[in-house]
């Protein structure tokens, strides 16, 4: 394992800097499509009480329900929330990583 770590260090000395906008977009796509698809899946399956648990998201997402209209509303909410989460994670990661690098440099000098 030590050998692998050494080799990794030799291969790249860089620490990834995350593009928050890109991560936000990825999370938005996953969030929006994800919520749309899980809603659509329940609707296609059908049954007596369609999506009783998923309906609870309506507590947070005003206008969302397990209906075809709701799936489109969910698509927008999912994308919005995903985007915010992705952007937040990206920004926070960069802040912490940069702070740690600066601290590391100070220690070595």
């Amino acid at each position, binding site marked *: 394992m030590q*050998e*692998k*770590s050494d*080799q*990794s260090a*030799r*291969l*790249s*000395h*860089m*620490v*990834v*800097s995350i593009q928050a906008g890109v991560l936000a977009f990825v999370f938005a796509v996953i969030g929006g499509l994800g919520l749309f698809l899980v809603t659509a899946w329940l609707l296609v399956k059908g049954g007596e009480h369609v999506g009783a*648990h998923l309906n*609870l998201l309506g*507590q*947070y997402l005003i206008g969302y329900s397990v209906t075809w209209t709701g799936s489109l509303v969910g698509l927008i909410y999912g994308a919005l929330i995903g985007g915010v*989460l992705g952007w*937040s*994670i*990206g*920004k*926070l*990661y*960069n802040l*912490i*990583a940069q702070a*740690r690098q600066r601290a590391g440099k100070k220690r070595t000098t």
Partner: protein
Amino acid sequence: MELVFDESGAIDYMPDVLVIGAGPAGLTAAYELSKLGIQPTVVEADAQVGGLSRTVNYNGYRFDIGGHRFFSKIPLVNELWHEILQDEFLTRPRLSRIYYDNHFFDYPLKAFNALAGLGPLEATLVALSYAKAKLLPHQQEITFEQWVTNRFGQRLYEIFFKSYTEKVWGIPCSEISADWAVQRIKNLSLHEAVRNALFGAAQAKDGQIITSLIETFHYPRLGPGQMWEHCEHLLAHRGAQTIRGIKIEKIRHSRGHVECVYGRNASGEIVEFNSTQVISTMPLRSLINALDPVPPDKVLQAANQLRYRDYLTAALIVKREEVFPDNWIYIHSPEVKIGRIQNYKNWSPDMVPDAAKTSLGLEYFLWQEDDMWRWSDDRLIDFGIRECSALGIIEPGEVEDGAIVRMKKAYPIYDHTYTESLATVRNYLEIFSNLQTIGRNGLHRYNNQDHSMLTGVYAARNITGEKHDVWAVNTEKEYLEEDHTTSSTSGDRLVPVGIVPAISEADVSTDVILETIFARLDPVAMGGAVGIVSGLVLFLATAILLLKGGEVIGPNLSLLSNYLFGYQVTWTGAFLGLVEAGVVGFILGYLFAYLRNLGLTAYAYFVKRRAESEASGDIL
């Protein structure tokens, strides 16, 4: 020693440089000097230039001494080749196989092909032997035998490495240093292996593919000698003289300075060279023995312990249009003495004057002390014909003519004593301020043509004031292409600096991409980011429900208490959830980054091992 410039910037003092040996290293040194405005004198013992890379012409049939693929990972050398030979380069397909036990095997070795050719019983034994080597490897890899056995198993070693290697080197594999094999694959850096795996093999300036196992290579239309004859012409055009037939006999020196070099020409006359700088490609043993006054006994003894393998080619002209499709065949069958058979026509169609005929080179690796070395040419040709027909490659009646070429000191031997002997000689030579040794025999290193050429370039540049360590060539990859630094012993002149053969923009851009792809995710930062976001999300989710209120608040979200100790949909629970979800998020984020880094590292490691494994099948 440096060039001295006058006030106007013109060269005020021109060093008088003598280059001993007109092989690739010597001629490259001279060529580089001439480009730098210095006209050296080159002396060559033989009647022909090119050294081991000469092309012998016999009645229009051209014989390459050993077979030289023009393929280099060093951009500077690729540029030089094309600069000297220009459009006389052909791109040729590479095909070489191993002949053993009446079968042809792919070379470089391919597992399936090798096992299929050996038959089921032998293949099983090979597999068992391989498994044993992997489970119980030699703890030390000092000898070539140990090195190969650890990688291929004892059985494959005996079939594909032992007999041929012992034919070439003339000593048991258990007495050959593992250095020889290591030198052949050590150039594979992790960085390069990954770059090749991701982007395909990198390309040099001339578009030549850079990889250890190439399928095509460049080759001068009239053999490698064409390169060096052309180089000699270019030198003459620039005013540099190449004198053939001068055998260096004595090198007079005093206080670490070569004062005069004495040679004897073909007429037996002594010729003196009072040069201010000397670059020698002479075998170190000969060089040390030529020094006057003689070096200390310890140095003399060390030099005399350096050994060389000699080489003989029996060239046969065969009345057949096509004999076999390979450029060369390794003959592993122990029942014949031939080590390799070259098919010159497959290197370049212009190597034969008559397309209806084929010229073969039967290569024998000998000691000068061997009886066979002293056999008459006719006897050697007859012997070659008999062996070649015994292998079923030709019929004796098909051979129209033949010729013999002998090359003394073709291969420096890496035996158990060479490292120590070489170090002693090298240390002694470092006292000389105006003598540099370069090339395969000048460094006693099994360099290919490109590395020999690079030592020539460095030696020439050292004369103009740069500082390069010629001994570092072909020892540390980093010296050539990566960090541009190396650690090595430094004498008066041999201080390493970051010389860089040109690195193409394409290489740089792929390096940048590689850096980006393999950049590490900081696990702590990722853990922190995911942790903060997770904590806040749970806090907000709880807070929203609390603010909305109702009879039963958040019965479903409360189920999280199954995982988050003490969590409830209350304001206290919201803060508890913030902390606990933060911790869980941190762990998940950290793990994600760590595993992602580990996966990339493991991939890079795997790629390097695979490349090493491929290269180790190409060390013959």
